C-alpha cells in the first residue's frame, strides 16, 4: 500500500492546476488568455510551465484576442487552449463560432461563476450550461466535457484535446468555481502514461489537398501553415477548397459536414457515469460539482431502501438523448439538480416527452446544493 502510494506520487492539487497539467500532458503547447476570476490560476500555471516544455504562453489584450491567438497557433500546428469564466466566455463566442466554421481544433475552459454580467466573480454557478451549447450564432454542434473532481480536471482536459484533435472542432471544458478552486489529493499519471490523440495529417500531394475535404468520415485531414500545403481558411461559408461560396448545394454540404462529424460519432463522444441504476425507478441527474452531492444523496436514499440511481453526464454536450430515452423506460421520476434557474431540466423534459416525471432542484443563490436537499427532494417527489 505504502509503496504504491509513493510510486504514484500522491499530491494535494488545485483543480485549476490539474486542468493546466492535463493540458500539457495532452500536448498543449500554446496558451493565449486574459486574467479572470476564477480561472486565472490556469493561466498562471501555464505561464510558468509551458516554456519549460518548449511551449508558448501569451497574455492577450482581451478574451476575443485570446481565442484568436489560440486559433492562429492551432492553424500553425500547435495544440492550443484558453481558459476563462462567464464574462470572458461571452466575449469568446465570436471566435468559438469561427473555430466551428473553420474547423480548427482548440480547447476552451470555462470555470463557471455566478452571472449574468459581472455577477459573482468568486462564487459558484452552472448557469453557462446553455451558453456552452448555443453561445455563438448559427447552426453548429457543441462538445463540452464536465469534470466533477480535481482528478477529472486533469483527465477531462486531456479528453477535450483528444476530441478537439480527432474531430477538428473547438471543445469546451465546463468547470465551475468550486472545482477550479478545490484542492484534492490525487495521483496524476506521468505525461508518457497518457493516451494522446493528434490531428490527422494529409497524405496526398499538395496539389490535391483540400483543407475542408468532404469524405465519409466527415473529418478532413489538416495540414498546418508552412508545411507546403497552401490553402485558404475563412469564416465565410466555403467549399472544400476553402474559398467562399454562396451556392446553395455547397452551403448545405458544409453545414451538414459540420453537423455529421459530431452526430455520427455520438457513441465515441458522449460519456455517462451511472450508479445504482440497475433497479432504480428514480434517478438524480446532475453534473460537475453537484454530481458529488447527488451521489451522497443517492447513498442516503439507498439506506432508506429507496431505489434511486445517479446519472452523471461527463459530456454535457452533445446531450445524452439516446441514453436517457433508453433509461426513461424504467424511471418514474428524474430529479435534475443544477446551479441555475433551470437549463438542463428542460433538456431532460424534452427527451422525456412526458414518459417520466421530471423535477428540477434549482439553486442560484451562490451556495452549493447539499446532499440533504437532494435527499429531501427525492422523498417529497417519490
Amino acid at each position, binding site marked *: 500500500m505504502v509503496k504504491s502510494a509513493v510510486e504514484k506520487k500522491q499530491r494535494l492539487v488545485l483543480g485549476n492546476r490539474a486542468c493546466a497539467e492535463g493540458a500539457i500532458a495532452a500536448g498543449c503547447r500554446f496558451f493565449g488568455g486574459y486574467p479572470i476570476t476564477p480561472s486565472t490560476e490556469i493561466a498562471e500555471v501555464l505561464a510558468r510551465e509551458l516554456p*519549460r516544455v518548449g511551449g508558448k504562453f501569451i497574455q492577450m489584450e482581451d478574451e476575443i*484576442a485570446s481565442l484568436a491567438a489560440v486559433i492562429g497557433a492551432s492553424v500553425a500546428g*500547435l495544440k492550443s487552449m484558453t481558459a476563462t469564466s462567464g464574462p470572458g466566455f461571452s466575449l469568446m463566442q465570436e471566435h468559438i463560432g469561427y473555430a466551428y466554421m473553420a474547423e480548427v481544433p482548440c480547447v476552451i475552459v470555462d470555470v463557471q461563476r455566478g452571472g449574468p454580467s459581472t455577477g459573482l466573480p468568486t462564487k459558484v454557478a452552472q448557469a453557462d450550461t446553455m451558453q456552452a451549447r448555443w453561445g455563438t450564432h448559427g447552426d453548429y454542434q457543441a462538445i463540452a466535457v464536465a469534470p466533477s473532481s480535481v482528478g477529472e480536471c486533469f483527465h477531462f482536459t486531456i479528453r477535450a484535446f483528444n476530441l478537439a484533435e480527432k474531430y477538428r472542432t473547438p471543445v469546451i471544458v465546463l468547470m465551475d468555481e468550486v472545482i477550479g478552486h478545490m484542492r484534492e489529493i490525487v495521483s496524476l499519471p506521468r505525461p508518457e502514461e497518457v493516451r494522446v490523440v493528434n490531428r490527422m495529417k494529409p497524405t496526398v500531394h499538395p496539389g490535391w489537398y483540400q483543407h475542408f475535404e468532404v469524405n465519409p468520415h466527415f473529418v478532413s485531414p489538416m495540414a498546418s501553415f508552412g508545411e507546403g500545403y497552401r*490553402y485558404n481558411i475563412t469564416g465565410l461559408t466555403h467549399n472544400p477548397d476553402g474559398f467562399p461560396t454562396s451556392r446553395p448545394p455547397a452551403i448545405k454540404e458544409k453545414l451538414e459536414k459540420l453537423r455529421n462529424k459530431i452526430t455520427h460519432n455520438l457513441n465515441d463522444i458522449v460519456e455517462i457515469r451511472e450508479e445504482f441504476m440497475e433497479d432504480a425507478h428514480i434517478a438524480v441527474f446532475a453534473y460537475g460539482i453537484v454530481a458529488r452531492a447527488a451521489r451522497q444523496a443517492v447513498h442516503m436514499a439507498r439506506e432508506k431502501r429507496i431505489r434511486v440511481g445517479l446519472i452523471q453526464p461527463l459530456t454535457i454536450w452533445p446531450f445524452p438523448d439516446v441514453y436517457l430515452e433508453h433509461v426513461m423506460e424504467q424511471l418514474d421520476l428524474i430529479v435534475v439538480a443544477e446551479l441555475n434557474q433551470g437549463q438542463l431540466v428542460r433538456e431532460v423534459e424534452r427527451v422525456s416527452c412526458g414518459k417520466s416525471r421530471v423535477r428540477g432542484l434549482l439553486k442560484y443563490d451562490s451556495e452549493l446544493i447539499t446532499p440533504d436537499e437532494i435527499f429531501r427532494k427525492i422523498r417529497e417527489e417519490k
Partner: protein
Amino acid sequence: MALISEVTHKYLRTKKQFPNVWCAGCGIGVVMGAIIRAIDALQLSKDEVVMISGIGCSSRMPVYVDFNTLHTTHGRPLAFATGVKLAKPNLKVIIITGDGDALAIGGNHFIHACRRNIDLTTILINNSTYGMTGGQVAPTTPFMKYGTTAPYGNRERGFDISKLAIAAGAPFVARGTVYHVVQLKKLVEEGIKKKGFSLVEVISNCHTLYGRLNREGGAIEMLKWQRDHAIPISAAGRVPPEKLRDKFLTGVLWDIDFPEYCEEYDKVIAQAQEEA
C-alpha cells in the same frame, strides 16, 4: 507592363475563380500588386508567406494569392496573426486590413500589436470609409466629410493612423499611396524586412462610395488628389508650414529598434528550462 503582370500571375491562385470583388479602379488591387512584387523581390517562398486579413473589401485579398491564407473575423486579424507567428516564428506573416477593420472594431488589437512588437507586417489600406457595407462613416473619415451614416457631415475627427501607431510603440511606420506604386512596393519590402512590428499605411481611393458621397470624382480624380497632397518626408523640411496644412507625409515615417517578442520568448524558454 508585360513583365509586371508576369510576376503577379506567378503568385495568383489558379483554383480561385476571378474576377475579384473589387470595383473597377479600386486601389486595393494596386496594393496587392505591390505586395506581390515586394515578396518576389525578397525571393520569399510561397510556403513561408502567411497572409492574414480581417473583414472588408481589402480583407478579401488573401483569397486570390497563392500563400498560406487566413481570412478571419472583423477587426481581429492581428490577434490571429500573433498566434500564428508565435507558434511558427520562421513564417513571414503579412496582415491585410482596412481602416474600419483595424481602427474601429480592431483598435484595441491594433495598439497592442504595436506595443507588443511581434514581427508582423501590417498593410493598412485607408480609404476613409466602410466600402463593403456601403460607404458608412469610418474612424478615419475627416471632419465634415460625408458617409451614409453621416448624412449631415461627420462631426468627429479621423484618426491619424501613423501617429497612433508610433505613439503605441510600433518600431516601423511608413505611409504610401496607391498613386505612388513604385514607392509602395519599396515600403512594403522594407516593412517585411524589418524585425519587429511594421505598419505600412496605404492611402487608397473608394470612388464608388466615398468619392461619390463627397463629390471627389472618379478613380482618376482621386488618384490625382493623392498625387497633389502627398509630400515625401524627405522633402517636408523644405516645404513652408502653411503649404503642409492639408497635405500628408509619405515614406518611412518612423524606424527604431526594439527587442522583438518571439526572440524574447525564446529567451524565456531558455531561462525556464534552465531553472527547471
